[in-house]
């Protein structure tokens, strides 16, 4: 699986989006799910929060020139809840986000992120507040998310991050694009399937 990148470190500036329970309908409104590919998703993240019905820009961190070019997103609790649409992390990724740091993530969202090679890592509530304040005060701050040492650092600060060990291994060892790996066990899959009575219509 040598062709899958090993993701160990993400560095860059950051952008904060405050609020708990931000659902994937808000991250990407359903009308954009009509597009047959993810190619243009980067144009749409938080669309209805960034633009009014006339297309005029509203106040939103993703519209704020101070945060332009940010590659790390700071969020609060239960980010990405709701619909399983992978269009949501795709939209963030294609917008330029290469790591998400938050208080917690919804289960399907965190799984989708991992499978795209987009780390979604957790920090304590007081730490996310500190990180959000740091970027709000100095948007040009450079952060570095280190998956091997499980830290995010900026200036002289170093904060512990957490993520499920299985996700961390998938990202850092290049197993996050799982298809080839799963497919390499196809014979074993067939043996497991053959033992399930419903696979043969309960004929015996």
């Amino acid at each position: 699986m040598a062709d899958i990148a090993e993701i160990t470190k993400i560095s860059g500036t950051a952008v904060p989006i405050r609020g708990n329970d931000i659902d994937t309908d808000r991250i990407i409104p359903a009308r954009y799910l009509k597009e047959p590919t993810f190619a243009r998703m980067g144009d749409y993240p938080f669309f209805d929060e960034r633009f009014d019905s006339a297309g005029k820009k509203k106040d939103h961190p993703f519209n704020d020139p101070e945060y332009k070019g940010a590659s790390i997103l700071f969020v609060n609790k239960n980010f990405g809840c709701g619909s399983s649409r992978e269009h949501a992390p795709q939209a963030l990724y294609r917008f330029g986000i290469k790591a998400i740091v938050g208080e917690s993530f919804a289960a399907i969202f965190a799984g989708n992120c991992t499978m795209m090679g987009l780390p979604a890592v957790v920090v304590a509530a007081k730490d996310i507040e500190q990180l959000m304040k740091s970027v709000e005060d100095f948007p040009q701050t450079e952060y570095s998310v280190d998956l091997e040492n499980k830290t995010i650092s900026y200036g002289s600060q170093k904060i512990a991050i957490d993520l499920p060990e299985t996700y961390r291994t998938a990202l850092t060892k290049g197993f996050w694009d799982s298809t080839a790996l799963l497919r390499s066990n196809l014979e074993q899959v067939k043996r497991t399937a053959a033992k399930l009575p419903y696979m043969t219509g309960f004929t015996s």
Partner: protein
Amino acid sequence: MAGRTLYDKIWESHSVGILPTGQTQLFIGLHLIHEITTAPAFDMLRENGMDVAFRDRTFATVDHIVPTDVRQRPFLDREAEELIQALENNVNQFGVEFFGLDSVNQGIVHVIGPQLGLTQPGMTLACGDSHTSTHGAFGTLAFGIGTSQVRDVLATQTLAMDKLKVRRININGELGTGVYPKDVILYIIRRLGVAGGKGFAYEYGGAVIDKMNMEERMTVCNMSIEGGALVGYVNPDQTTFDYLKGRPHVPKGDAFDRAVDYWKSVASDADAKYDDLVHYQGKEIEPTVTWGINPGQSVGVSEKLPKPEEFADPDGAKKAYEHMGWQPGAPMLGTPINVAFIGSCTNGRLADLRAAAKIAKGRKVNPAVRALVVPGSTEVKRLAEREGLHEIFQAAGFQWREAGCSMCLAMNPDKLNGREICASSSNRNFIGRQGSPQGRTMLMSPAMVAAAALNGKVVDVREYV
């Protein structure tokens, strides 16, 4: 050794092995697909020269974008037409059975799986849709997955997964009249929170759940994900077996008896060990209505709207009030509505339409309300019409539509306009969910939606039953 849960048993029998990441490679017995989350997955198969590994365990339908008034092809919405064509091409090229618009089996993916007997106890099931937990009503481990995972299931019929903990939720005693399964699940989410189920599978049980029919259990399991739980299920019992018997994909004769033996064997043992256990009393539960922007923000219909300070996250509640334009302390009763929607994979089955029709019968929808009934599948529509439910609805002033997801997520022409408020039997009240960024959604049972439609405002359905 302590007994095992259904979750443990199915997990074990479907485990292919442990991956280098530490995750389990889990075999998926049934894969249901639809037009929205699959196109990029098929593209990835094509790019890598892969085929569908277990075609005969893969079934497709079209539900999310289907217009429910005029179904004529090509669709007026060019993007919707392109998407359905992409699915048609993909199922043809890869040889997947497809219940298209012209099929009697077409419908919302979570309605047709059970209806056809595809969904069975003791099985793992995956679908690129978060409400896949619906199928858990049968004692199935059913996972809502993203597009990369759809690709994995297509290519390998397996998923890389981490094992969950199991929380048993008992609903004891009985429900009052006018209280429905929708109220039960909204109550559970209100109590445990929209993220409370993170890391858990929810096992629902207790006298109230035992007494429910399969359609009612599906409503409860359907919204597990709104409580943060990836999986929700009910142990299979005689109710389950009776529902399945005779359905097209269910084994017949001796094979059915063997199936029942297997299905019984997967139920949680009486001494199963749970990671967490909660109990509620059926009589605590009122008809429940959401007032905010997530499914946990709800009150009993006779309550007043809560103060933001009552929540662990007052800012979240404030944001909800800002969007809804309401004040804490206002009564829920009497809140005006503009639109009424009965349908979705939560409440678009025959039992739901019957419950709503009972309220609507011989009465009239308030002239200011736009009211829609959208059956969950073409078969549900046929059965409802056979009982004359469509006539009851139409006489009352409801529009009677073709099957699809419709205003649950408004990817078809059924949408809210501007600031409209919708009394909805669907599952999500997220900002913008019903097609208007300013639109407002109040989730409730189909009977409550019908009662609200008649009155142009939220009323207590118990006055009607």
